């Protein structure tokens, strides 16, 4: 689609211009200052690791993405490992309140471990996600909070659609 680019320099930038590290890293990345952006993403990821492992995983993943561009996959592997660990921690934390979030977390961890070259760990994460998924999908009576709406493709054993109560 051809759309004229919307102006970036306006008063609205002032009010949305935040001081957060994530925001700064984003801007640096867009301006091509990649080394600085990686540093900020990693700092942010480390700071958020305890309180918010999901965000930490996201920051590591952003850093890994830039490292791949800059230095190739090998250099990015340790950061992918850290991202995987963060996503795994996120999944464990989310498990009690939202199993569907935990499933997603384990799947993300699996992908990141694979990119870190840790294939066994990646497989283990995927198995955990799948077994959890089976427990939820096969759990009899529907539970909207924990269920992802899917098309009629994967029918339940009783022949009803997966979301049928």
């Amino acid at each position, binding site marked *: 689609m051809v*759309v004229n680019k919307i102006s970036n320099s306006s008063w609205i930038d002032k009010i949305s211009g935040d001081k957060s590290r994530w925001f700064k890293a984003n801007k640096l990345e867009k301006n091509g200052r990649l080394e600085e952006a990686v540093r900020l993403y990693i700092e942010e990821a480390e700071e958020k690791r305890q309180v918010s492992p999901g965000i930490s995983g996201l920051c590591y993943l952003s850093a890994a*993405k830039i490292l791949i*561009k800059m230095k190739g996959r090998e250099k990015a592997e340790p950061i992918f490992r850290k991202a995987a660990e963060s996503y795994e921690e996120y999944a464990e934390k989310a498990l009690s309140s939202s199993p569907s979030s935990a499933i997603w977390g384990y799947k993300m961890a699996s992908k990141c471990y694979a990119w870190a070259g840790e294939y066994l760990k990646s497989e283990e994460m995927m198995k955990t996600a799948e077994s959890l998924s089976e427990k939820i999908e096969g759990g009899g009576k529907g539970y909207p909070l924990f269920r992802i709406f899917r098309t009629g493709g994967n029918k339940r054993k009783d022949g009803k659609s997966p979301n049928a109560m």
Partner: protein
Amino acid sequence: MLCEGTYPFYRGGVSTWTHNLISNLKDYEFFILSVTSAPFLRRRYNLPPNVKGILNIPLWGTEFVKEHIQEFKFRDFLGRNLSTDERKIQEEFIPSLRAFLDEAKHGCKDPRRLAEAICEMHVFLTRHDHRKTVRSKAFWNIIQEELFDDRLYGYARLSYIIDFSRILSHILQLLSYEYPYADLSHSSAAAFCGLPGIILKIDRDTPYLITEHGVYFRERILDLPSKSSIIERMLLINLYRAIVQVNYYYADKILPVCKFNVDWERELGASEEKIEVICNGIDVERFKPIKIDVEDNRKRIVVMARIDKLKGIMNLIDAMANVSKRYPEAICEIYGPVSDKQYLKACQRKIKSLNLEDKVLFMGPTDKPELAYNRAYVVVQPSLSEGFPFTVIEAMACGKPVVATDVGGVSEAIDGFGVIVPPRSSAALAEGIMKVLENEEYAEEMGRRARRYVLKRFTYEGFIENYRRVYLEVLSEKIWKEIIEWQRS
């Protein structure tokens, strides 16, 4: 966060949802873009510290776009005004307005064409004068060509087309604002407030989410002016359909609050793999059974709803006429703000004509709904349309039996732990209420079970965690896409 007629300036279910979500997602920072009806509105909520800014976009009540905001500079206004003339409007604005109208009047044949027109109009209107544009000859020529001269809509009344053009000029105000930088945009409706989300998605590849409470399209149909002809209605219906469809098309995820919405969304062209139901959750520590000494021993029927046609208050009043014949001591307390003054007057007239002045009381809005619920013998929800109503699960959490109409996600919420009646039937509603009033033991047991059920299914933690994950999911997905593309290249 993109809102329309809700947070933080109006109270109601969607505002409560927005406030709960923002207050609990402390690890995210929010900027609120609120489409409203007036420029200077009092905030109805204390904003949590992670709200970094608010932009109120009033569609009515301002002569010049942005005149109500602090950053408004006369110099900018003058610049925009001087750079706007008939030739520019004709060349740079009219082609996109023509495309927009063509898509709008046909209910969106091509969402990409519609979105492109919206973006182009946004680009033009942020650099030029909105007022001058909608007063130009070129603007009205296009209205003539696309509407008056249209083979179908040409049959609409002159006054109606002029009204429609007025609505259009107000919508264009929304496109005249610059929107803030964000990592993702989240709209609380597939409505006009979603247009900034679509623009940001196209311009900056910002992931876009929609949470749908009541189905916007359905609610607009219910709210159509009753005096208009079929053709006139079609024009508005098609405009709403177009806006909803373009929202669905550009959303990365559509998050209905109940399964009821899914069928509508599918029917309106939403792709199924984007849809995920996330039910509302409530604070079960706040909404719990509380012992309250009420002034008398009358059986209280509590309703928590704003005074609006969609809430079915008229029906409730009719039902109360029936109920009070068998239970003269029953009293109905309606808590909620007035959003439609005409409707309130009509309700009051009806109450007077039925001699129910001391039996149906408008209590106004309350900051302590948990206390209001706990005054009740039974809580009633008489709506004609709902998404996934907080009032039902809050009342259930307070251990109260609920009688509710079968609309939207209500029956999903109640799931057998309350009484469901068909909407628009005052007789059925009265019967449902009397069923609970006549058997105290039954009512108490229903309330106890309802609370247990809510504790199991509609907790805050699950609700918040699901949104936290969806935000992470769309952001992570965007990064993955870049990684994969980079690797391929």
